[in-house]
């Protein structure tokens, strides 16, 4: 009797396994893989110079879902993007490749480099110079002011300081964040200027009269230790000897000693974790800075 019940239960359960319909996928993907537009000459150049060698996509055509929609932005001018892409490759990608090898670049640089034409302006009169998202994407703003000498935000091609200010300190800064995310730095760095970080009030402090004498390379470095770390790294690589010396003059003996102590942390970190000699890296950036204007910016080659 007991077995009969068990058989009935089993039969009932089996009959319950019914399928209702044949809702199979139609077979057509909703994510077409064929591009609807042909690549133009610049896009082909980007493929050959960024995507194939470094597995990096350069987003120069605006996609609102890729940009920070809390800001009012404009797309980048494609001709200016071509110039910036050439400079970025020479001064940044190729500099790391020269010192650490192409494999280092391929494995560690962000996968997406985004160019935005306008500034990202805040209502408190500050502007965002660049952002990094989780080691995946770096966004550069103000691209449409490249090769211009008009206005407060102009970036003339031959003005290396302006290029650094708007693009390369950002790139090195954000890249240091990415490296730190992959291999954390020694947190004893955080103790050097403990208690002096000011978070969002950084812009109320002068770099020359306050930040440098207190051992911060720039007022923005006063936000928090990890920003201090990345900003010092980027400024040290990109500043030539003359500019670095002028900043150390503002810093004075006390400020300079603090900055040097922080730099020593960075030297050790880059050597121990990434096998990169900081001075060699700086030399590579600096010699390229002296040469980048010899490139042909009127043709893609």
């Amino acid at each position, binding site marked *: *009797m*007991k077995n009969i*019940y*068990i058989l*009935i*239960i089993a039969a*009932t*359960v089996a*009959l*319950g396994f*019914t399928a*209702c*319909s044949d809702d199979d996928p*139609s077979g*057509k993907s*909703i994510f*077409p893989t064929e591009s*609807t*537009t*042909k690549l*133009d000459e610049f896009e082909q150049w980007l493929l050959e110079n960024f995507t194939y060698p470094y597995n990096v996509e350069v987003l*120069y*055509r*605006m*996609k*609102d879902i890729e940009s920070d*929609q809390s*800001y*009012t*932005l*404009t*797309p*980048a*001018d*494609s001709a*200016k*993007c071509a110039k910036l892409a050439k400079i970025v490759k020479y001064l940044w990608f190729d500099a790391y490749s020269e010192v650490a090898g192409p494999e280092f670049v391929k494995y560690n640089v962000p996968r997406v480099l985004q160019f935005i*034409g*306008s*500034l*990202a*302006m*805040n*209502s408190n009169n500050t502007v965002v110079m660049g952002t990094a998202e989780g080691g995946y994407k770096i966004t550069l703003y103000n691209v*449409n002011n490249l090769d211009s000498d008009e*206005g*407060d*935000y102009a970036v003339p091609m031959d003005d290396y300081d302006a290029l650094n200010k708007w693009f390369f300190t950002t790139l090195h800064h954000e890249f240091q964040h990415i490296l730190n995310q992959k291999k954390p730095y020694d947190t004893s760095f955080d103790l050097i200027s403990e208690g002096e970080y000011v978070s969002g009030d950084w812009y109320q402090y002068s770099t020359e009269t306050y930040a440098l004498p207190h051992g911060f390379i720039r007022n923005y470095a006063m936000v928090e230790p990890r920003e201090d770390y990345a900003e010092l790294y980027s400024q040290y690589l990109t500043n030539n000897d003359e500019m670095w010396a002028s900043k150390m003059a503002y810093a004075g003996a006390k400020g300079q000693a603090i900055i040097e102590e922080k730099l020593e942390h960075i030297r050790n970190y880059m050597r121990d974790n990434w096998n990169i000699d900081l001075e060699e890296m700086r030399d590579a950036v600096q010699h390229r800075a002296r040469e980048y204007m010899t490139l042909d910016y009127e043709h893609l080659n």
Partner: protein
Amino acid sequence: MKKICIYIIVAIAVLSMQSCLHDNNDNFDLSAAERIDALVNESYEVLESAENGWVLHYYTGIDYAYGGLNFTVKFKDGRVSICQQGATDNNDEYITSTSTYRINRDRSAVLAFDTYNDFLHIWAEPDASKNNAPTDVDGWQADYEFVIFNISEDKNTILLKGKKWGNYMIMERLQKTPAEYLDDAAAIANKMSEGIGLMKYDDGEFTAKFLYSDGQYIITYTDADGNKQTLNVPFTYTDDGVIFCEPIELNGNVISGVVYAEDSETFSLKDTKGMTISISYDPVDVFQSGNWYLYMENLGEVAAAGLQSFIDTDKEVEGEDLDFAYIGTSKDGDYGFCFRSGGRYNGCTLFDVETEGADVITFSYAGDEGNGEWYRENDNLGDATDPFFNTFKLTTDDVYNPTYFILTDVNNENNVIKLVQEKTESNDEN
């Protein structure tokens, strides 16, 4: 045990009584994604099929606040060539700015102008030093990504909606070259902005007045409940008239624009009732459609004393000369007593206006604009404006081509004000 087994069987049986409902009938033949895909492909085809391109009636500002202008846009192989009304070179040829576009798959198909175009994107530029934008960091609140809302059956009209700022915009297939269209629209603009002050729309007992004001009509009417209503309707010119930023409804008639007619005082409306609109020559309407300047020698004793008090106090307190003052439309498109002091300080005392018949008009105080409040509080502006807050009978030399209006206070024979059309050096001295 037996009972437990029975319970289990019953429970399983009940749970197995599932219904294979086959009433989940699809409302569409294709899935949402496939329909968007089809719309994207259709949009590419339609956009690039226009041999002469399209005219885009483009608007900036939330709720069209900063008005509209015309672009012609021609799509070809992923690139777009744009001309803008009035943007010509030294040879009067329209300048073309070329950039890229694409149609993105989003919640609908989205037309994105995705690299910088000198004509289109300058309006969105957040750095106000580049485009004199009226906002701190939002430029002219201008879109360059548009949801494709509708493509007309004849494929000649596309309704777009700005993705960030939300304005609807119409794109029409060009039947002539971009230069021809822009030239024709410019000619229409000249004819409809000069010489046509106020138009009157009559529909039975219902009357609405259309006052032209710098790219928009200020439409006033009395609704069914007897309340006075005002609509500010920005528009762009077409090659045959104007098209409103959005259709409006007046007394059940949906109106989307006006068709200009040469040498006529009556124009057809683009509407659902087949109505017309006519230029009004009632003195109250002609008066409101112009700016009429105060000139001390033309003012009666009441208005002259008031204006003199303002002039004297302005000089004494601010150390400024009053450059001019007029009754008319302010820089912001509002109506009232407008003035400039010290060569650069503009202000206005706003008027509420009531009319009776063809020639009786009543003004009342409706606040201040610009620097008006400052001069009211500190420089006796009120002395100059108070004589206007009365009911006047209007007379003029020629309603078809007036050079002056005389306002006679119906309750005070000493309050007579003559206002002249043109600003003169004599006015400037005042």
